[in-house]
């Protein structure tokens, strides 16, 4: 049974019709597939089938450890969205519910290779010379969360030093505990700074700079 029904598949096809460059969706799963590992793989394969520009690659997290390390993938299910290069755009846990839009957004974003951010943000990011890791915790039933995820992915594409993960909190409860996630979206920057809620672009940039100054 397909995960995407005909109606949704048709809309996704339309959405992805004008990708100008190719995108690789690299999925990590394992032999005895984790909860939602099989579905994540299937989702990516179904999307890849809807566009000539998208290729799905499936790796085994255990036996392809080298590839996982190369892409910085440390948990599964994982999707790395790669374009001309690796911008650091990742999804941990299945991008279902409201996060499905974030996945389509990431594909289009990485294909274009150009973020849609304000000049002020781009200027601030140009000054970032240290590594920044954004982890956006979400649940699939949260309508606000996609906003934070899409913004984090934009920042990752805009700066070679920034990488950004969507983390589906229900699939990684140990991380939800570690980072004290009790509400979503919660964005963790470099382990030391937290943002509660879906906040506007300038505020995220300010927090990001704060994390580096800390």
């Amino acid at each position, binding site marked *: 049974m397909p*995960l*995407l029904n005909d109606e*949704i598949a048709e*809309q*996704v096809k339309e*959405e992805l019709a004008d990708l100008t460059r190719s995108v690789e969706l690299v999925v990590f799963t394992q032999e005895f597939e984790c909860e*939602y590992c099989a*579905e994540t793989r299937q*989702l990516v394969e179904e999307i890849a089938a809807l566009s000539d520009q998208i290729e799905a690659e499936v790796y085994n997290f255990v036996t392809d450890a080298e590839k996982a390390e190369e892409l910085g993938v440390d948990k599964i299910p994982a999707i790395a969205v790669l374009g001309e290069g690796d911008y650091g755009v990742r999804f941990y846990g*299945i991008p*279902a*519910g*409201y996060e*499905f*839009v974030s996945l*389509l*957004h990431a594909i289009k974003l990485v294909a274009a290779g150009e973020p*849609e951010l*304000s000049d002020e943000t781009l200027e601030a990011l140009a000054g970032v010379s240290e590594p920044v890791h954004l982890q956006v915790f979400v*649940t*699939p*039933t*949260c*309508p*606000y*969360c*996609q*906003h934070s995820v*899409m913004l984090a992915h934009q920042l990752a594409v805009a700066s070679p030093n920034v990488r950004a993960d969507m983390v589906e*909190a*229900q699939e990684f409860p140990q991380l*939800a505990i570690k980072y*004290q*996630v*009790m*509400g*979503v979206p*919660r964005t963790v920057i470099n382990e030391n700074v*937290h943002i*509660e*809620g*879906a906040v*506007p*672009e*300038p505020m995220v940039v300010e927090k990001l700079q704060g994390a580096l100054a800390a």
Partner: protein
Amino acid sequence: MLDFKLASSQQAGQPDTEREGDRVYDLIIIGGGPAGLTAAVYAGRAALRTLLLGGATPGGQIANTDRVENYPGFPEGISGADLAMRFQNQAEHFVTSLANDFVTEVDFSAAPFTIKTHSDTYQGRAVIVATGAFPRRLGAPGEKEYFGRGVSTCATCDGFFYKDRRVVVIGGGDSAIDEGLFLCKFASEVIVIHRRDELRATKALQERAFANPKMRFVWDTMVEGILGQDTVTGVRVRNVKTDETSTIETDGVFVYIGLIPGTRIFAGQLELNEQGYIVTDSHQRTSVPGVFAAGDVQSPDFRQVVIAAGAGAKAVLEADRYLAETASSYA
């Protein structure tokens, strides 16, 4: 069960800038809830060149409502998220352009009206304001500090984190009881704290609430503070009849004490009433000719999806008439 929602105001493409030199839209709709999305459908059918500025939540408040059972055409009821997505999809068929941008400033002093967002400036010959309403904050000490660490205004977003834990819900209206019932799916106990001795929620919801073994009610009580260490541990409450204070232990606090209209950016531009709602006449006209308002932003009296949608339709019919009249006066 997995589902995949296509509801987003970002995916429908960027504002239409192809027609250089003509960035003036016939109509700009601010707000992506039932009023704004219905307006978009009507505007499309009226062949108006329309920009919809959707804001952060596709579908507005209904997107985080567990269940909608009173919208016509859905005899079995429908989840708020699914209804929001249907509104959104239908609007996308009709609207000229869509942008998921936050409006930061408006200038309604002269037509065409100017609307600034985080990233751009737009002009419209007519405007419909449908920015809706937002959860009212308690204003008690600890609320801000523990937001996201036990304090929440979105049960559908955060309910999962309270599996087998105790939560309190503050409020006695439809939202409080509806979301409280939703939280019963996760929490071990849901304590409803209400400042009166009876609920304001509709009878059907009340019956379900009283029948739910996980729900407990604390009447005549105000929450005066939220207590915590790293995260919420309890609430300090006062009984309004006896004036006694006490502490209720809890892991989570969900605040549903009503809404405030999203009108901050319109202050000084449009006439607002004492509670901050936009004043309109029965034809959705505001104090500025050419600017219309629809939905919860303009009336706290009937907070219903069907009313907001109806008001959105009225606003476009009226805006269309206004545009025709002003166009002919230039001719």
